[in-house]
């Protein structure tokens, strides 16, 4: 599909009522015909995606068939619980709180993480915080590289490029968080005979920004087709509290606050949405650039980054692969 004119932020504008109705009809159909469970568990993070997923689930199935699961841990942002509680109250759904710090401690997450960080910052210890950030893709044609930002107890930050092994160790340890959360979501889903609703938006789903068998796992994904800006539009329509709608998207994964655009996406979500839309609809870089406030060369680099991420994360979407087809229907 090629769009050579008419490209503007308006291309992402939704008819809120119509889209909410379409999604809810589809959720009911999937639950009735394929999933065949009595309701859904939604992990509430206090962010926009989980809030909208929960709100759509309530609209589709009724509030008595939706339960919110809040799963903070030692590194979670302080406001996480307050915000997820606020959403649950606004939607009128019950919630359960499972602090996963104890499980993370038991599997050795905190120790493994700290040891991995000490491979590059030996003095890292009590009172320090850290996060991973990526190089800016849109500024220069470089391979993505990963940097560790640490902050000591005096709030002094330093940044170091991560070599292969510490990078893999940090990511592998951190993935415990998403996988433990998903394990608990399925525990509660099983005991209630519910399904699990996943919360990825289109950017995350398309670009592979999820942990396989962690936040990537779910029975239904009601907003995986929506660009992030569209999720915000629906949030307003669905009455998600303003405090959540005005919050900057974070990963809430590392001890030092981390924006999604620092860790994975090369641009803030509003621009990333438009770039992804433009890429999907064949908008030439020269036409997209003025709308985005970028140079055509920068848009081309983002397009290339989109293609690379698609290619390199495709395996995350794959089911276990078989040597030959096994007939089962």
């Amino acid at each position, binding site marked *: 599909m090629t769009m050579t004119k008419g490209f503007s932020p308006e291309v992402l504008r939704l008819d809120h009522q119509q889209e909410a109705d379409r999604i809810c009809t589809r959720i009911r159909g999937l639950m009735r015909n394929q999933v065949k469970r009595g309701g859904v568990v939604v992990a509430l993070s206090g962010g926009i995606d989980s809030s909208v997923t929960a709100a759509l689930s309530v609209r589709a199935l009724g509030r008595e068939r939706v339960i919110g699961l809040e799963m903070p841990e030692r590194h979670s942002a302080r406001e996480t619980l307050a915000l997820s509680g606020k959403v649950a109250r606004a939607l009128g759904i019950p919630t359960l709180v499972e602090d996963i710090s104890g499980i993370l401690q038991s599997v050795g997450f905190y120790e493994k993480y700290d040891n991995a960080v000490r491979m590059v910052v030996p003095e890292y210890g009590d009172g320090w915080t850290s996060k991973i950030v990526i190089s800016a893709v849109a500024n*220069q044609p*470089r*391979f993505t*590289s*990963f940097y560790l930002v640490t902050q000591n107890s005096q709030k002094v930050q330093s940044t170091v490029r991560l*070599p292969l092994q510490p990078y893999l160790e940090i990511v592998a340890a951190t993935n415990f968080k998403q996988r433990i959360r998903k394990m608990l979501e399925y525990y509660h889903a099983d005991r209630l005979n519910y399904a699990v609703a996943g919360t990825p938006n289109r950017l995350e789903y398309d670009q592979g920004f999820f942990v396989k068998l962690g936040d990537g796992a779910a029975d239904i994904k009601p907003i995986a087709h929506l660009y992030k800006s569209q999720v915000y539009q629906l949030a307003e329509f669905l009455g998600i509290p303003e405090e959540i709608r005005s919050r900057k998207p974070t990963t809430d994964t590392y001890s030092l606050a981390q924006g999604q655009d620092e860790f994975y996406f090369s641009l803030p979500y509003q621009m990333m949405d438009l770039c992804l839309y433009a890429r999907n609809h064949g908008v030439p870089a020269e036409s997209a650039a003025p709308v985005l406030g970028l140079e055509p060369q920068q848009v081309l680099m983002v397009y290339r980054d989109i293609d690379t991420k698609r*290619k*390199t994360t495709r395996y995350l979407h794959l089911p276990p692969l078989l040597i030959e087809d096994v007939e089962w229907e």
Partner: protein
Amino acid sequence: MDLKDEIRSFVVDNFLFGDAEGLTDDSSFIREGIVDSTGILQLVAYLQERYQVAVADEELIPENLDSVQRVATFVEGKRGGGSCAGGEG
């Protein structure tokens, strides 16, 4: 084995499971899906360990690392004190 052969052998062993079919000295690692961003980290780790060359942030660019030929030229430049794209030599 010369430098280019060693690099080629590293790529074939580590990213292609020993099957070098279709890999030329100029095959683009990224465009042909041979290496992803983690693979680049792996390649850089190999270059640093095997050839004792430091790879600066600004040298992490396709001109230096996106084919067997480019990597060989990059390492030769670093070892010989010649100039490398994005670097100061």
